[in-house]
């Protein structure tokens, strides 16, 4: 087993750079997700790891082996595609056995290996079925088994769950995570679905326009976005525009045009700089009118007017106005606020990210 290293890889299509000088290290046994909107270059990165895309510049290492010029069949990778890519003229057994036969493995051993792999994806007894006789979920399991049966150094998954319905997708997420945990195979997972990425990954690399926007653990990516793109991509976020006016303890003070002062976390920013403060709707606490607070809790307490309240079932989606700024908030259904009402809110300064504007 080995890790994976990409060093300054560049891939251009015409003048457009699909991957722009990207470096990335996937540790041994790690599951790393390449996350980004369509066209961000994540699939091109994956295809340059698998060898189906020849990079214009840079190097790909699997373990200590430089594979930049090695054809795909000699890289020791396992691939799972969005559309499963099972061979329709072969049975499940033949699909799994194909790679083993190419390795000239004896027949008995192949049989054992195939059975073992099918058991792993809970498809025992489906050896003689043709792919078209299986459901989408089962086909994807076969595809996974086919990739794993060869015990590759690196497993690459290209949006493997996008063709499945929502319920099955959720279930398969856990199964993939489970299989990964069980075998500890170094895995690169490509998706545009941030929830999927959060659930499944050890680390996430957020890409945009062929560049790395942020690399880190799911919780860090979500709560400590490095920039506006990551903050916006990882879920609903309110942005309030302002300038850094002061520093206080660990916090930065951001003042908006309308005179609102917000305390939040940020780094590498100077006084006077234009910034955006990112606030997640779930991090807005509604306080009771009598409630008083002290210390840290007294920072970021504002009076807000409820502009709109939409009952969504599990929660209430509010639109609030603080001075001139409109923000969205998630409220508890047990305490329902009506439109026009004024309410005291608290924004936890630790959960506010101050980002370069």
């Amino acid at each position, binding site marked *: 087993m080995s890790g994976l290293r990409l060093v300054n890889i560049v891939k251009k299509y015409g003048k457009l750079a699909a991957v722009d000088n990207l470096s990335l290290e996937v540790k041994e046994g790690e599951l790393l997700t390449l996350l980004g909107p369509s066209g961000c270059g994540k699939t091109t990165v994956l295809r340059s790891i*698998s*060898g*189906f895309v020849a990079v214009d510049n840079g190097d790909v290492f699997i373990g200590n082996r430089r594979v930049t010029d090695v*054809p*795909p*069949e*000699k890289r020791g*990778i*396992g*691939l799972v*595609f969005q*559309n499963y*890519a*099972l*061979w*329709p*003229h072969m049975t499940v057994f033949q699909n799994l056995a*194909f*790679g083993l036969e*190419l*390795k000239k493995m004896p027949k008995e051993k192949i049989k054992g290996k195939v059975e073992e792999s099918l058991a792993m994806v809970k498809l025992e007894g489906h050896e003689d079925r*043709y*792919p*078209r006789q299986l459901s989408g979920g089962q086909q994807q399991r076969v*595809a996974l088994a*086919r*990739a794993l049966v*060869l015990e590759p150094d690196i497993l690459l998954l290209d949006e493997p769950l996008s063709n499945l319905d929502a319920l099955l997708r959720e279930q398969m997420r856990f199964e993939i995570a489970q299989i990964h945990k069980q075998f500890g195979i170094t895995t690169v997972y490509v998706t545009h679905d941030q929830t999927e990425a959060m659930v499944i990954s050890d680390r996430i690399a957020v890409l945009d326009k062929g560049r790395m926007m942020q690399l880190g653990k799911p919780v860090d990516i979500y709560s400590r976005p490095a920039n506006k793109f990551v903050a916006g991509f990882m879920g609903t976020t309110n942005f309030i525009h302002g300038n850094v006016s002061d520093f206080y303890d660990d916090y930065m003070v951001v003042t908006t045009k309308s005179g609102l002062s917000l305390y939040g976390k940020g780094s590498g920013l100077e006084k006077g700089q234009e910034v955006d403060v990112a606030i997640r709707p779930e991090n807005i606490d509604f306080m009771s009118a009598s409630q008083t607070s002290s210390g840290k809790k007294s920072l970021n307490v504002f009076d807000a007017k409820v502009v709109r309240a939409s009952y969504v079932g599990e929660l209430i989606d509010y639109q609030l106005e603080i001075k001139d700024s409109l923000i969205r908030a998630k409220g508890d259904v047990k305490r329902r606020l009506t439109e026009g009402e004024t309410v005291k809110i608290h924004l936890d300064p630790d959960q506010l990210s101050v980002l370069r504007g």
Partner: protein
Amino acid sequence: MFRKPVFIITAEIVLLVLLFLVILGPMMSLLIWSIAERWYWPASLPQEVGFEYWKQALGLQKSLAIGAVSIVPAFFLSIFIAIVVVIISMLIAIPAGYALAKYRIPFGAFILFLFLMPNAFPQQPIFVNLLHIFTRWGLAGTVGGVVLVHILVGLVFGVWITNATFKSIPPHLEEAARSVGASSTKAFFKITFPLAAPGLLASAVFVFITSLDEFTGTFFVGLPFVNTLPMTLYSASGYNMQFASVIAIILLIPSILFMTLIQKMLKAEYVGGMG
């Protein structure tokens, strides 16, 4: 059980009979002509029937009737030419169709269009000019020359159908094979080729039938030395309707056989598994 109303059943029967008339009517006329030994106006059916003309055409019986020739040599020559044409055409069409489907080839669409060219213009002027060139090259009146002409006409089916077939096979299937250790050659022969087989066969059959029925090019380039079945049919049709009918029926047989075969192949499990 749901039962169909009587008028729908009646309508279906009428439609079926009409369909048979339209499709089989002309063929019936051919069949009747081929066994008509004596058929004079105004009789609506032949006065005398028999297999005299079939026997003569198949070389089982000599005859001095005008236009009476044994079609056996012509039949074998036609089949021989068609087989050579299929082999050469497919050797060109499979790589060309595959390359045009898989790779981004500059002017790919234009190259595909070029194959259509010989069929996109009136054929007589093209083949008259071809005759001049072939005469200079010593190809006029030779089997080789006729083979070349047939390839020219048939290649459009070869390349277009193989191209469409390869395009219909998702490229990921080959990539998946590469990822489990198959070289690109192995991936092609183990994955793409078997999946493409029905389409490739269909394309070969089209080329075969095109060659078997080719007339204009053979007329200009081949005659009077290369006598294929359509040439024999042409010369017989002027003098002897019975001979012409026999030849026409013989020409129909491979087409019907192959069409049935293609239909069987396309119905097979491959199509369902493509998606």
